[in-house]
């Protein structure tokens, strides 16, 4: 297996973790969440539930997220949050 394909596999797994955390926070099973889903515009994620989302994500990844390193753009979509996890080496 090449490095590139390993990275691809990792990313897909991280996206699944992010989706799992998002669904846990929303506590709804009537929404379809994909890599391109916009967290704030489409799902209504806001400052009231973002901390809970990060804690669910920590559970999924078995890692610790430092919220000081997160910026607005990381919360654009499921995919951008997955990219943040990969950038920080959390997966």
């Amino acid at each position, binding site marked *: 297996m090449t490095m590139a394909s390993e990275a691809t596999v990792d990313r897909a797994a991280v996206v699944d973790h992010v989706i799992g955390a998002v669904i846990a926070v929303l506590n709804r099973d009537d929404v379809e969440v994909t890599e391109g889903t916009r967290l*704030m515009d489409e799902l209504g994620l806001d*400052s009231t539930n*973002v*901390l809970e989302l990060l*804690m669910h994500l*920590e559970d999924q990844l078995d890692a610790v997220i430092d919220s000081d390193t997160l910026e*607005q753009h990381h919360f654009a979509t499921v995919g951008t949050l997955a990219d943040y996890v990969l950038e920080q080496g959390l997966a």
Partner: protein
Amino acid sequence: MTTVREPFVRRLRTALLGTDRTALLFLGNFEVEQRWGGDELGLPKVALSAGDALVNRMDEFTLLLAGPDDYVLLKDAPDPGHLAYLESLGVGLPHLLITDQQDPHHTVTQDALLSPGLLARLTALTGSVAIFPHGVSADEEQLAERTGLTLAGSPAATCKAVNGKIYSRKIATELGLRQSTGWTCESIAELDAAVEQARGLLEAGRTVVLKDSYGVSGKGLLVVRDVARLEQIHRKLRRRADRSGDQRLALLVEEWVAKTTDLNYQFTVGRDGSVQFDFVKEAVTENGVHKGHRMPAGLDQRQLATVTETAGALGRRLAADGYHGVVGVDAMVDPEGGIYPVVEINARNNMSTYQVGLQERYVPAGWCALARQYPLHLARPLRFAEVRDALGPWLLSAAGDAGMVVQNFSTVNALVRAGDGPADGRLYGFLIAPTTDELMAMDGEIADRLAAAAEGARP
């Protein structure tokens, strides 16, 4: 405590300034908690600023509270169609002042401080006008200093001190008022002790909530349903303290108690320490976030007495701590009809404050009203004329009729104007009808019509 009825704004002027002859300059610096709590250590913060642009345009709520002799300072001119509509209802509009420039992420006060032309105009009003902000922070004090205008209200330091949820909890304890089981945490050591107590609640099947002392209502809180989550947040807070060497905290740990209804009541503490009860309303919330108010609140005599007695006791206590001004209190009704009379004290204006002028002008005796927000997903800004056409007969056309007054229109377009793509806006409406059933039917019809209008503003 007195309950004499005269127009709220006149009572306000007298309470704050000792005379009703000085005009007020209304300043809608919403979410002032962000300024009060800027240096406080609460729950881990995540930088989400997307909603700021909308919150900052809530400044327009002042338009319908100010009297015709008063001044209102806004970040941008209101939609001309909205102003014309309000005038057609017979609203005596206040004098409008607009900041020289506006940054969507600034409060109206922050924009004003960067507006030399406006500052000069305000300076010319010295002696005849007093600044009346939504809440007093260091920014509003600076505006008063820069213009020479009097600040109607208490100093920022006093306002900050009495607005913390830790303060609410401490004085409720001191006054013997009913509240949920809970602990104040002003240090990591106090958090450690509170976590041990909260663990017991969770093991007994209860739910716990952690609240930032300076969180905006419904925000800055974390609901915890199991011990693992409690330990996780405990570790996070301890780790932050270990890293920074700062052991301070400004946090509450409380039991998340059962409730059937959220209440919001208001009283005004005068400069002379007098306390006037203003109103009690039923708050409409979704997922803990404020969505609107229903009035009247539908309390029985015993419940109402608990609320008004608590208002008197809290008002006297706040006056003793040097506060005068408007005070809103969040409270709850439990499933047995008992009252939790103080969940948090907000010693500033509240959303419901801005509804008083509408109640006085447009709600006939015995009728009911609903103040709420309607979400609108927009690809381009919507004009008031489009909303007026969409609402048709449901838009209030005269005092004494049923219908909706558009209370804030600038929040409809705030985000779509601030960003570079489709965005969510909010229309704040004030609905009036003879009965609750008619009110609810009107609400459904208006929601459908506004959704259709928003659909028309998409590609």
